[in-house]
């Protein structure tokens, strides 16, 4: 039985605290060759918020996430994390920013030569060098228990299902206690039950950890469940940004179409 968590109370608390934007994207432009993927996107997100970025395939949703974590460099515009502009930062300086961020890749991107436990331990091994082996093992077990994968420590990524791989990817993304969580199509390619479980898991983590999350998805149901705010992208621009109710009340043809088709 899927559990649904209500995060509105936490959200109100955070708004009372007057939390500033932890991620701010300003007039971001990115082209690949002659194809302009993002054309002046501006978005921001505060601690404890979850922003779902929606749109058809090829509208640059995943590119936006890659720009935010610095895996791509924008042609123009800026990406600020905690007020610091990260565009053009050297790889080592960028590393310090990335320690505050977790990224779940669309296909999980687990290290295929490492076990499930080793995958989750990987960031800890490199960034918590003072942590004892026993302490690291406990932390890995705890992280995997959070995503319901504690019984699969020794399995290889190729021996577990796509949904399980995403759970392990999520545990790895949480290993360094990030302030910002970026999720690229967390429910893509999963059956409805697994999708629901992943949504519940994301909600649970948001409630417990109060991170800022940006979720790229084309799954409106999932976005409605987990996000506090939604942004619809088309042709590299934000068509509308607001709550699900704002989208429902919109008169923009594309928004109506998207809601109808979803």
């Amino acid at each position, binding site marked *: 039985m899927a559990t649904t968590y209500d995060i509105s109370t936490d959200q109100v608390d955070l708004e009372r605290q007057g939390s500033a934007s932890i991620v701010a994207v300003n007039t971001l432009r990115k082209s690949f060759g002659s194809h302009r993927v993002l054309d002046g996107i501006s978005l921001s997100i505060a601690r404890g918020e979850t922003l779902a970025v929606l749109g058809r395939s090829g509208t640059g949703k995943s590119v936006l996430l*890659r720009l935010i*974590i*610095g*895996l791509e460099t924008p042609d123009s515009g800026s990406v600020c994390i905690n007020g610091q502009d990260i565009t053009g930062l050297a*790889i*080592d300086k*960028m*590393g*310090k*920013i*990335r*320690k505050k*961020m977790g*990224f779940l*890749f*669309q*296909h999980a*991107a*687990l*290290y*295929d030569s490492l076990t499930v436990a080793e995958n989750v331990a*990987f*960031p800890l091994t*490199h*960034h918590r*060098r003072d942590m004892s082996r026993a302490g690291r093992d406990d932390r890995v077990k705890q992280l995997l228990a959070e995503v319901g994968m504690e019984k699969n420590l020794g399995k290889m990524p190729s021996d577990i299902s796509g949904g399980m791989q995403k759970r392990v990817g999520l545990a*790895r993304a949480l*290993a*360094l206690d990030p302030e910002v969580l970026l999720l690229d199509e967390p429910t893509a390619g999963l059956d409805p039950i697994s999708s629901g479980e992943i949504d519940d898991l994301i909600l649970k983590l948001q409630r417990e950890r109060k991170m800022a999350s940006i979720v790229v998805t084309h799954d409106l149901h999932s976005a409605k469940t987990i996000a506090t705010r939604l942004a619809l992208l088309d042709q590299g621009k934000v068509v509308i940004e607001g709550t699900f109710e704002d989208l429902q009340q919109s008169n923009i043809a594309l928004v109506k179409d998207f809601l109808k088709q979803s």
Partner: protein
Amino acid sequence: MDLVDGFFEWFGNLGIFFWQVLRAAVTPPYEWRELIHQLDEVGSRSFPLVCAAGAAIGVILSMEARYSLTRFGAKSMFPVSLVYSVVQVMGPVITGLMVSGRVGAGIGAELASMKVTEQIDAIEASAINPYRILAAPRIMACILMLPLLTLVADASGLLMGWFAQTLVEPLSFQQFIESGFKNAKLNSFLPQTFKTTVYGLIIGLIACYEGMSTRGGAEGVGRAATKSVVLGSLFLILADVVLVKFILIVFP
């Protein structure tokens, strides 16, 4: 014109890649465990191949040398001829080409596969420098292991070359070594052996660059593996031309 542009672009990108790896390699934290793993991967696992290649070259050179020297009535020069041709010329090049084939293809394919499945992006997203953890230990292992593997190929070549000669005309091993290394100076052999560190740099650098910059799925992985071997071997031979001249000038 595109070909010329592509050529300079490739070199430019390789230079930038090398700079990134160099910066990552000389600044802490150092990835000792990964380096040891790669030393084993590049060194120990190439041992049988290099041994076999060295042995084959030794036998071939032994047969050729005996035939040529007998024709010119200089049979007594056989040990010196074999030692010099194995240690100075063939040992380093054959080792370089063998390692380029085995290790270059392996590194290129492994890193390319990690690249197309976003595993390298995942490393970077985890705030870990992929140049430090992936490229630097592999290139360093190639640099450190090539001279040692060259010594293995040399030893194997000399042993089998002597053995091939002994089957035709008995010659004690002690006599073979004494006459072969008579009047030999360290300068005659050390630069030739240590020049293979440059081969190691070329093999490791090109394979890591091709692997980590590949695009496309399975086709990209195949392309990276092929280019790692072909370009690695080609630049190794071209570098040898320069290195031989350099050694002749510096160590006359």
